[in-house]
């Protein structure tokens, strides 16, 4: 599954025999130069994390309905894949970290990666527009612009789909890391409905 330049570090913890909180941390180390097969690891990691979420949610008592469980796991997979793809595309260091934590009524996903400080102004401008506007309307505008512009490296639709189609709130945090880089943490707070019978 991994080439020689890629590492997974898995860390899981519970807070007791009857765990109320479970955490999963995955650390990917992907070479900065694009290499065949490395982008695919974003998807594989999302699949793995979604399966972990499925197990967590299945063991919840009382359980979610089968349909709701499937729907939530599908959202987890989409959200994590998109956040990892963004981290992969804009990273300024090899390591990307994913943390997943199930709390009483949400599944928290945090993806961290280094970005170049030179990218921050553009990022803040984009996030500002994202937070001010209606995600569904921004999605429509963005796609219409893509048709006019032609080739685009990034579709820019991932965050809009997470916010609009999947109804998952996002938040961002930047922390200076030195050497002209900062750590960007993107947090997705995936609602988990009160358990259904």
């Amino acid at each position, binding site marked *: 599954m991994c080439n020689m330049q890629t590492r997974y570090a898995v860390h899981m913890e519970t807070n007791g025999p009857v765990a109320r909180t479970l955490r999963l941390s995955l650390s990917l180390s992907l070479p900065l130069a694009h290499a065949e097969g490395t*982008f*695919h690891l*974003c*998807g594989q990691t999302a699949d793995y994390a979604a399966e972990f979420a499925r197990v967590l949610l299945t063991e919840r008592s009382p359980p979610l309905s089968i349909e709701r469980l*499937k*729907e939530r796991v*599908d*959202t987890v*997979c*989409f959200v994590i*894949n*998109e956040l990892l*793809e963004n981290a992969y*595309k804009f990273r300024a260091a090899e390591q990307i970290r994913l943390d997943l934590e199930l709390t009483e009524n949400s599944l928290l996903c945090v993806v961290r990666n280094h970005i170049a400080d030179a990218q921050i102004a553009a990022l803040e401008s984009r996030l500002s527009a994202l937070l001010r506007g209606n995600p*569904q309307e921004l*999605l*429509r505008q963005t*796609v*219409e612009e*893509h*048709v006019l512009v032609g*080739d*685009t*490296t*990034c*579709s820019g*639709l*991932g965050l*809009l*789909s997470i916010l609009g*189609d*999947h109804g998952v709130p996002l938040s961002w945090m930047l922390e200076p890391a030195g050497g002209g880089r900062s750590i960007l943490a993107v947090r997705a707070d995936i609602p988990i409905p009160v358990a259904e019978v």
Partner: protein
Amino acid sequence: MEIKGGNYRVWYDPNETVVHFEGILRLGGTQEYGPIEELLEKVLAAGLRKITLDLRALKFLNSSGMNMIYKFAISTRKHGDIQLTVIASKSIPWQDKSLPNLKKYNSNFELVLVD
């Protein structure tokens, strides 16, 4: 016409004028989606009055893939009076969430959700 990758397949059935999508599509941006976009543009260039995309077997599509589908809906709109139909599965959650967006790009769009 057929495009195959590691875990996906896209092909056109000229008898039914249906483009079928199957598997998991998580390609890396516009460039990697280029061959599938070319297939769709060839179908569009055939001058059909009705085009159907059958996505029932497409389990996963990333945002770059959605961008491609949305752009195709705009292309059909620009080609005039073409009926665009998308057949989707009720049992694949993302399809019910994201595919209704297609109506924003083409008023001649119909979404058929099946079990």
